[in-house]
């Protein structure tokens, strides 16, 4: 196997090494191309990491359902009827649709997105107040900085506890004040703060100026009875959210005598659609950057081939001598081909190392993310690296054939002709 012929390798390295300047010049194109390819790939990876971190904590296979007003008259009801869910709906839906993984009912004080005045020691904040089940945390994860989130005992015992957002804290407390265990007053009822959460760079449907109290406590404190405002639902993996969404709506429409074609009566928000959009955006981005990188790599390898072609012309005499001394066309072809590959691989490695160094520095500088730079941990994966390397070698092999055949076409008699 000629690949393991030590002499051939020696010959190739000798030729390249003894012509260092020419070799370096040839390498430059591929070095830069590899640099561009790796940086672009890392950039798109970093961007998709960034998106992932924004959505971290939000189950991608989730949807939110709330009641709105009907837009069609149906079964004797006029249009404009407000749809108000009952807590029993949650059980019905869970029973009828086994694909539902988690269903967290919610009720809010006031209208949807309404604001309620929260008091504490003469201070006030206009916050959203939600009655929630602990399960909500499985769908939209809160980044707690202090204390805990609501739990089962809170629900069972209808405890008067609450979890507040950072904005609410700022409005109700002094800077540095410990909020845990303190009481806040909502509609004349006192709640003890058990936890506080912070924005965590990601999307937050509820905002940071919000107070979460146990659903059961909410019912008792504010007399909401069996009403339910909202449902946060996550579906099992491998189940299409849109399918579950449609079934939920069908059941609700049937139960509340809503016209089957009424699109406005039930409000819903399909999280997976957003994810799909973002995913397709990042894959397009990935594709574009890969395309650009590969194209520049292609250009770089062509440059190698071009310079090799020129050097073949320069080396006419040398190759002629080699032929006269007994180098068969095969041997000459093999050597030129191997020179092309060695140059490309070396240049690729240099470009890669350089790019990795640059990325390492960038990562250190970025840390956990910098304001205004939509990148997080920009790096290439091992398969990406292997693929681009494999691609590069194949390309250099194919393109190296051109100078190799040119070298073989030199007839020794012409090469040796005295000028």
């Amino acid at each position, binding site marked *: 196997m000629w690949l393991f012929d*030590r*002499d051939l390798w*020696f*010959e190739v390295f*000798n*030729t390249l090494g*003894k*012509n260092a300047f020419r070799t370096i010049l040839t390498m430059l194109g591929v070095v830069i191309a590899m640099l561009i390819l790796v940086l672009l790939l890392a950039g798109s990876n970093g961007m998709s990491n960034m998106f992932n971190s924004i959505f971290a904590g939000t189950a991608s296979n989730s949807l939110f359902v709330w009641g709105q007003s009907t837009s069609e008259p149906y079964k004797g009801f006029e249009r404009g009827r407000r749809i108000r869910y009952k807590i029993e709906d949650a059980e019905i839906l869970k029973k009828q649709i086994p694909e539902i993984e988690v269903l967290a009912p919610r009720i809010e004080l006031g209208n949807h997105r309404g604001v309620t005045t929260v008091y504490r020691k003469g201070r006030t904040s206009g916050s959203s107040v939600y009655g929630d089940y602990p399960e909500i945390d499985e769908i939209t994860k809160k980044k707690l900085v202090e204390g805990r989130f609501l739990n089962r005992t809170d629900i069972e015992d209808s405890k008067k506890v609450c979890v507040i957002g950072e904005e609410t804290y700022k409005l109700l407390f002094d800077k540095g004040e410990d909020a845990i265990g303190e009481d806040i007053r909502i509609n004349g009822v006192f709640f003890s703060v058990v936890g506080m959460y912070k924005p965590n760079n990601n999307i937050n449907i509820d905002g940071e100026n919000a107070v979460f109290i146990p659903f059961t406590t909410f019912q008792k404190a504010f007399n909401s009875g069996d009403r339910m405002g909202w449902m946060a639902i996550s579906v099992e993996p491998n189940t299409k959210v849109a399918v579950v969404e449609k079934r939920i709506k069908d059941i609700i429409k049937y139960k509340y005598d809503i016209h089957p074609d009424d699109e406005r009566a039930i409000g819903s928000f399909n999280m997976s659609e957003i994810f799909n959009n973002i995913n397709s955006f990042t894959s397009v981005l990935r594709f574009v950057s890969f395309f650009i990188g590969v194209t520049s790599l292609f250009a770089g390898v062509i440059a190698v081939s071009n310079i090799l072609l020129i050097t073949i012309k320069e080396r006419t*005499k*040398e190759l*002629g*001598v*080699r*032929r*006269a*001394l*007994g*180098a*068969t*066309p*095969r*041997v000459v072809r093999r050597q030129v081909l191997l020179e092309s590959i060695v140059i490309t691989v070396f240049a690729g490695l240099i470009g890669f190392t350089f790019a990795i160094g640059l990325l390492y520095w960038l990562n250190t500088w970025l840390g956990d993310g910098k304001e205004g730079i939509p990148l997080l941990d920009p790096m290439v994966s091992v398969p990406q690296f292997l693929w681009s390397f494999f691609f590069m070698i194949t390309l250099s092999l194919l393109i190296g054939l051109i100078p190799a055949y040119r070298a*073989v076409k030199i*007839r*020794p*008699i012409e090469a*040796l002709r*005295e000028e």
Partner: protein
Amino acid sequence: MIEINDLHKSYKMGSNSLHVLKGINFKAEAGELVAIMGSSGSGKSTLLNILGMLDGANSGEYTLDGVPIKDLSETKAAQYRNKFLGFVFQSFNLINYKSALENVALPLYYQGVPRKERQEKALKYLERVGLKEWATHLPSELSGGQKQRVAIARAMAAEPKVLLADEPTGALDSTTSYEVMDLIQKINDDGNTILVVTHEEDIAHMCKRIVHLKDGVIVEDKKVKQVRAEQYV
């Protein structure tokens, strides 16, 4: 060793064809030292190219050491060159980025001789041309005469049947030329067959036989009393 019968060679030059060799008959025994002389255009270089398997003849027979040389593929020609022939050129044609030793070892590399053996052999031949101390030097660090001696060592390293020298002294001053001829004579003394193409009378007379070429035919083929180059060195 070499036998040529009725060799013809013509080149196409547009619509005309240039008849360069018009029926050459030539025979050289083993151990001969033959000078091929002729003015430019006489066909001596073409003859040497055909003898060196760098070019093919249009018609005629060429036998080298009993092997008919005919219709060779590039690969076969390269193998035969490597096995049968050693070349010495007017402009030395050393590979400029390789040391003297590496240059000498090159034909051995193409023969597939293992590296170590190659080095030893190359060094032995360098020693024979008196350049052992220059083994690691690049051609650019050698004088013209030294370069030609390296080239001769390279031609000899593969232990060819025939050494073909194309104007080996063409680029050298007379003192150096005699040094090179002295070396060639000594190699011939060891029993090697050598063909020297030259247009210099004094160089030709340092061979044992002179073949005169004119307009593509041999006009004179005579044995001469060899002038030893040693006395001029």
